[in-house]
């Protein structure tokens, strides 16, 4: 039993996203891409959905994965795969938003969609999260996805102090909003 667990642990240890991406870049095999997709697709889609709306999130998510296919030879083992993936997706999203409208106009539309009031805490969290400014929401989501401050700074092309400030404001707003709801 313990031997099985040890072998399984060893096997699983090799199946990191970075290892899978290298295997995929070398072989171009669907098997590795499918595993990568299963590991990361929901996180990426939720990140994009939180920053935009469902149709755009689906579109950008698909484009980001196609970019992974297209630019697989550019991936280097030195970085975290998810950081690379989220950077690709985030750049695509920003380009798309800029091509459609300005960032502020887009956020206002987004907030208008999510103004349904509910007593449920999860829904209140959703409402508060979507009410955050784009940059704060983005920084908060990336931190929740497990990225460090430096990684968030790299993904968003922003100074690390700015990221700290955005996170502080985002968390403060969310706490106040949720406390008010509980009170």
């Amino acid at each position, binding site marked *: 039993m313990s031997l099985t667990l040890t072998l399984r642990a060893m096997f699983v240890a090799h199946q990191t996203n970075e290892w899978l991406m290298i295997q995929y870049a070398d072989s*171009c095999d*669907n098997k590795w*891409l*499918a595993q990568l*997709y299963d590991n990361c*697709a*929901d*996180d*990426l*889609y*939720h990140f994009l*959905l939180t920053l935009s709306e469902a149709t755009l999130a*689906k579109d950008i*998510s*698909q484009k980001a*994965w*196609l970019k992974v*296919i297209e630019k697989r030879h550019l991936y280097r083992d030195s970085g975290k795969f998810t950081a690379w993936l989220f950077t690709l997706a985030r750049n695509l999203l920003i380009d798309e938003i800029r091509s459609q409208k300005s960032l502020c106009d887009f956020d206002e539309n987004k907030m208008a969609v999510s103004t349904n009031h509910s007593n449920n*805490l*999860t829904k209140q*969290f*959703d409402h508060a*999260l979507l009410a955050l400014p784009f940059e704060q929401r983005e920084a908060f*989501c990336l931190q*929740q996805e497990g990225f460090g401050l430096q990684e968030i700074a790299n993904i968003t092309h922003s100074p690390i102090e700015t990221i700290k400030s955005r996170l502080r404001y985002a*968390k403060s707003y*969310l*706490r106040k909003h*949720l*406390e008010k709801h*509980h009170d």
Partner: protein
Amino acid sequence: MTKPNKTTEVDLNELYQQRKAKYAAPSIIKRKVMSENHSGWNWQSIYQQFGAIALAASTLLLIGLISLQQLPNQQKPLMVYRTIEVHDLQPEEIGTAEQIRNQYAARYNQYLAQRQTFAFHHQKSAILHQANSGWEMTTCDQELVKVSNDLLMALIGINKIESKIENGDSVEIMFDESGIILGIKQAKQALHC
């Protein structure tokens, strides 16, 4: 003192994860991505193989060109460089004082003769005096050029001396570069020294 239901960092994480669990990526994205990867694989493989073949072919071509250029260069030195062996090189013997003096006199006479020849070469006009032993031609520099009967006959035989020349006529003597008389003809104008 904190409130019992105060929203903490952990609560935010939990709420975020709960929210994320509600929104899974649409399955259509995976289907499209996988089909795109599958359709793109063959082309990619073909490009890679073509690239490898092209690289190999160009490398072989480059090696061939370099080796072709080097072949003539290797043969050239054999043709250009030749060994010359000097088998006999004897030093000039130094003679006695009398021999040196005689050699000097001979060289000096050669020099004078060449100087005269040089002068005649440029002094073409002269006055003819016919003698029994041959012709004698006097230049304005009081130089005397003697032409033996044998030479006269030889020159007449090849039509290099005009037959109408008479004693006392002004003549033009033609020399070659080494001073050999090539011909004698009557001067158009009389020579006045």
